[in-house]
């Protein structure tokens, strides 16, 4: 951390002053994003986690709007908040996991995880401090709109686009296959642990 601070001191505004000139909406949004994402990982109740995550996605969509990526903002809401998270919620409900069933991990594990994640954060920020250069601002009107995106997607990225279709197909088939109940599907679990009900 000391290294980080010293790096900051070298390369511009320090950690506190860098927030001073920011627009209020951005600050509020960011604050909410971080808060809700923290709740996602710390909440003991999975349902709360899902709900917090959906909220996070909403805030991120708001960021997209701020960034003039309107199409993405909408898609994010539809796909993530709408589809994926509902899927999560649905599975939770289906398995009746709303209670706090998760085994508690020991403290040292939490500390280890925090240290590891923290050091990752530190390193990535430090990396930016060391190598980051001011990106030339080159805003182009309307690249976040469907029209512009569609043009790029169906010209330069048409092959990957088609490939994602295949990926979806595969995922769909896989999901269906996995979901199918089989007679003898306890292969994963040794008998003596008696997992099969």
């Amino acid at each position, binding site marked *: 951390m000391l290294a980080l601070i010293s790096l900051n001191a070298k390369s511009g505004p320090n950690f506190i002053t860098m927030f001073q000139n920011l627009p209020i909406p951005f600050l509020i949004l960011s604050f909410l994003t971080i808060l809700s994402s923290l709740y996602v990982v710390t909440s003991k109740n999975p349902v709360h986690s899902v709900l917090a995550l959906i909220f996070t996605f909403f805030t991120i969509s708001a960021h997209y709007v701020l960034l003039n990526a309107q199409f993405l903002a909408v898609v994010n809401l539809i796909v993530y908040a709408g589809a994926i998270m509902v899927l999560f919620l649905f599975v939770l409900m289906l398995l009746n996991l709303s209670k706090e069933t998760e085994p508690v991990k020991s403290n040292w594990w939490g500390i*280890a995880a925090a240290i*590891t994640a923290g050091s*990752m954060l530190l390193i*990535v920020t430090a*990396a930016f401090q060391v190598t980051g250069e001011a990106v030339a601002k080159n805003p182009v009107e309307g690249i976040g709109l469907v029209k512009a995106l569609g043009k790029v997607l169906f010209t330069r990225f048409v092959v990957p686009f088609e490939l994602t279709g295949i990926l979806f197909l595969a995922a769909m088939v896989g999901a269906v296959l996995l979901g199918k109940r089989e007679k003898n599907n306890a292969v994963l679990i040794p008998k003596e642990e008696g997992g099969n009900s």
Partner: protein
Amino acid sequence: MLTLMIFLPLIGFLINGLVGRFLPKNVSGWLGTAAVLGSFILAVMNFNALTAEAGQLESIHQKLFTFLHVGSLHVDFAFQFDRLSAVMTLIITGIGTLIHMYSIAYMHEDDGLYKFFAYLNLFIFNMLVLVLGSNYMMLFFGWEGVGLCSYLLIGFWYKNVDFGKAARKAFVMNRIGDLGLLLGLFLIYSTYGTFEYQDLFSRVFTGTDASSNVNTAIALLLFIGAMGKSAQIPLYTWLPDAMAGPTPVSALIHAATMVTAGIYLVIRSEAIYALSPFANEIVMWIGLSTSILAALIGLKQNDIKKVLAYSTVSQLGLMFIALGCGAYTAALFHVITHAFFKALLFLGSGSVIHGMHHEQDIRQMGGLRKKMPITYLTFLIGTLAITGFPFLSGFFSKDEILMSAFAHNKLVFGLALMSAGITGFYMFRMFFVTFHGTYRNHHHAYEKVHESPLLMTLPLLVLAVLSVIGGAVNLPHYLGEGISGGLHHLLSFDGGGQFSPILIYPEHAIELSHTAEIALLAMAVSVFVIAFLYTRNKYVVKGSVPEADADQQGMGKVLANKFYVDEAYDMAFVAPLESASDVITEYVDEKALKSAVDGVGTGGYGLSKLLSKIQNGNIEYYLLYMVIGISLLLAFNLF
């Protein structure tokens, strides 16, 4: 002719060694004898060629091949027959022949007779290489070779573990001396750049290549070798033990020839020794102390061969006194006479042992005079010769040593005279106890004691004659200038070559008046008379018998136990060495080093166990490791 002379015994060795076991005993015996006899005859012929009236030669030199030529090292396999070598060769082959002959009878019962003769022949060969080599390397070959033969022959009766031990002791003690000799050789080579006697000595003589310190170092290192071979303090203890070998071996190797190799070495290196008075002093004092010590121990020994062994050590000490005083001729003279009478005594004792059915303890003997007349007579002559009975060979040679000591240092003379006097006591003690008095052995009936066969008594007789007249080789000058000093004239012959005489430097001239000489003679004779009368009174008139070792008291006990030197050596060298070996084996090699290596191995195991714990299948851990890994990777790239 020279080569043939040297290689005849080797041929004998090869024949006996390879096919000896298929030959009848007599054949292999006579074969071995013939080889040495042939060698003797050739030696006489060579000697005549060397000293022929018309055109005397300094030496006959013969190079066979280059033994080694590497870098700065050049060693020829070459022989040099000069006057010193000639004298030694004659002793070796002459006495060798007699002892071979004697052995045919002495060893006739032994199954390994052919082997015995093979070893003896090999010994003669090595001894010839020693004295005939034309450089120090050749000397070293022979030096080691005779040591080996000595080992083989001491341990000849290999079934006896103690004999084997004695043999190894002899070899190892000799090797200690050899190491000194070897280092001396290295020093010679690095100083003078050659091993060849002629080149070397002319360089020593003319050049100022080396400081006197270096010469002293060389002389002392060579003397260490001589100590080992000639059984001087501190390396003498092997010689009495070496009596484990068959008696002819004791006569040939441990009395007449091999043990005098040390004397030969010093005489040969006279040029170097003469430049180092300090080394000479050391040689003299070592010789003196050895002479007295061995004589004292000899007083209380009851094994007939042990007495003779200590006597040999003592006489060798006397020779070194002479060398230390610069009386090289006297030393060589004593080598010759000593070879005669000591071989005689040993062979005589062998005859006694043979007659007594391998009994060696003189307390078990007595009164053998009547049963073994020839042995008795010859033994008497030998005893008289060694104790200095006037006008026998030992008288002249010993007196010459004493006189040179007198001229050099009165104290040394006194002590040497004492040593010579003690000789009289122990020799007569042994002689009287063995041949006079009453027969005391209860295991063998007196009637069974027999005189030895002719084959054994003949060499005795020959040697007895030589012991009587041997003094003629180098008569003192008070007997007349014309006939005296033969040996000295022989050795200091100067043919006018680059390096001429064996003895380059004049002897420390014995400038004594005739009166003084006569006085000294009188002292020596009176010491002899006292010894004779005292022992005769004690052992013949009173008929007392020496006590057993266990009954000895006070000083006698110390002497009977040989001053506890063997025990002291055991404590000081053998035991520490063995425990050092054990400690190193157990702690350093097994524990420290091996466990260090095994530590690497078990460390590897431990590490792999640790790593396999990491691979426990738990995905959370994997995740953690993955993230840590990525972090490290990034961090590494970053800084």
